[in-house]
């Protein structure tokens, strides 16, 4: 029996999910959304009563506890207002819905792309009935002699201690989609794409779903929001297709030293870069050994009172 394929929801299914205006969380169905809102956003913190809307809670707080409600609890910044009467998906302003749909769409395509990159499978809807996927292994027609010659070369190489590059790099230039750790090369390096896949053919995305805003570029290369998150790594294990055409192993041993050299050259700065990437953060306060109070104490308006 073959393994059952996991079904990923498509964009329409994702867009149909009800979601909460206050915290942007999405739910399987409307009932769950409503009970979420009652529990998280419209619950009275004095008596625990769950109201249906923010307005209802406001009136309840006023009449029962003589307190005024100023904001909706657990809401995202900017969504805490009491002016909107929200119940489930009712009352959400149209522009907020548009904004949400755009985010979902963008996230959807980014996710699909990422999955395609990791699995090496073509993206949904691509190559369905047209040309074959470019990342199919190219057919190699070798005669028996050629195969024997290659095997012989392999044996002598092994005897001489020459490191064999990863098999797939030699045998068939794998298109970038099938190289998980290295990421999709940015558009600046189009040569890294096999000729057939230079930019995924846009016909793969149903035109009815393609949003007019900026979600489209997702498909054509790098993932927006993290431009260049994973810079291309030339050299290591992933020679640009064309560098080693199938069956021409003669040049290979010469270039292996270069390859190894490149890898070691590449490795050191790569490490550093990665740790910097992880720290895409800004510390509001940073000091090794001076506490904020000590810094404050040096301000002229406080320093003048400091004992000397």
């Amino acid at each position: 029996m073959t393994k059952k394929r996991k079904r990923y929801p498509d964009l329409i299914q994702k867009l149909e999910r009800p979601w909460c205006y206050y915290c942007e969380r999405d739910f399987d169905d409307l009932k769950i959304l409503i009970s979420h809102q009652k529990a998280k956003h419209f619950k009275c913190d004095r008596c625990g009563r769950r109201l249906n809307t923010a307005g209802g809670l406001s009136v309840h707080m006023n009449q029962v506890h003589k307190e005024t409600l100023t904001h909706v609890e657990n809401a995202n910044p900017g969504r805490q207002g009491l002016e909107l009467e929200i119940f489930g998906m009712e009352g959400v302003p149209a522009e907020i819905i548009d904004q949400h749909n755009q985010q979902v769409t963008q996230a959807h395509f980014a996710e699909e792309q990422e999955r395609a990159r990791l699995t090496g499978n073509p993206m949904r809807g691509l190559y369905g009935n047209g040309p074959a996927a470019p990342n199919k292994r190219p057919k190699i027609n070798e005669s028996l002699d050629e195969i024997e010659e290659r095997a012989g070369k392999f044996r002598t190489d092994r005897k001489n201690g020459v490191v064999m590059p990863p098999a797939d790099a030699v045998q068939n230039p794998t298109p970038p989609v099938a190289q998980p750790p290295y990421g999709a090369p940015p558009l600046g390096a189009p040569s890294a794409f096999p000729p057939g896949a230079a930019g995924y053919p846009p016909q793969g995305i149903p035109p009815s779903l393609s949003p007019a805003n900026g979600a489209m570029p997702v498909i054509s290369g790098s993932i927006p929001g993290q431009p260049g998150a994973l810079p291309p790594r030339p050299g290591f294990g992933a020679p640009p297709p064309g560098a080693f055409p199938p069956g021409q192993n003669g040049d290979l041993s010469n270039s292996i030293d270069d390859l190894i050299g490149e890898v070691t050259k590449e490795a050191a700065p790569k490490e550093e870069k990665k740790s910097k990437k992880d720290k895409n953060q800004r510390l509001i306060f940073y000091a090794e050994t001076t506490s904020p109070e000590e810094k404050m104490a040096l301000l002229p308006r406080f320093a003048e009172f400091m004992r000397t």
Partner: protein
Amino acid sequence: MSSPFELAQNPTEPISAVKFATSNPTRLLVSSWDRHVYLYDTHAEPGGKLLQKFEHRAPVLDVCFGRDDNEAFSCGLDFEVRKINLETGEQTVMSTHAMGVRNVRFSVEHNLLISASWDSTLRLHHLSNHANFCAVRLPSKPFSISASPTKLVVAMANRAVNIYELDKLAEVARTGNQEVVAVEPWQQRESSMKYMTRAVSCMPNDAGYSSSSIEGRVAVEWFDPSDESQSRKYAFKCHRQQVDGQDVVYPVHALAYHPVHGTFATGGGDGVVALWDAVAKRRIRQYQKFPASVQTIDFSSDGKYIAIGVSPGFEDGVDDVPDGVTKVFIRELGPTEASGKKQKESKESDRHQLGGVKAS
């Protein structure tokens, strides 16, 4: 939900500490960089009533209540530790450090006053031993101290943490005669966080403590040195914000444990106060942003109120401070607002019990 109210008469410079009295839950001390200690009755009238102001020579960095609700201790940039009689306003200098004094704590059980100064010493005053004190040298500058019923945790520069036994400290202080004494810490630890420790607070049940760092992170650990207890320690990120894909990380200035429920509150440079359940590792709730950085938090002794000291311009030592943002907020907590998740179970069992009584 219901908004906290702010005290009507606030300090004019940043607030360094807020402290509730040990018995009266509406009596509040506030120390400020404006060189005053303020005493409020938070509920005498709407907006609280300022009972008295005590002037100091220099900015005050910390304050705490003493043996009763009419005695307080303060410390600050005048290098002095003072005793204040809150009725008469009389101030007595207890000792003078060699540098600014960052923290004072009073342990009622041990009748012991502890001050921590940037001169890298602790000073211990046993109140039965009148004007005398003794000093304990620390490996680094202390940044925050906190006392549990039996332990004193001192968080210092270079990520050092010393834990002392209060019994031992009280013993040496009883006979102290202004000399430096060598007291071995009960435990010496290294902070489990990478960055400077900002605040430390002990669990009211004497089991452990939390510490926070300038890099939006809080660690929870246990006193018990056994491997089993030590493996329970953990740290988590908080007080961060995503701005244009960048993680903006705020220091966690304030930490305070709830005296009844054993949950704790954190206050950060982002102006947010959050309540956490240390055992269930859950955030219980997060309050709406305050207008400026949250510097200090305290719960009243009955756990009914939380006081939050909010002041701007603290973290980077910037000199321009907008007016009217330095404020103390008081929030009345609902009966279950600060309790952890297990509350529901106990309610359930109450109900069962009641049912049982009715049936019999």
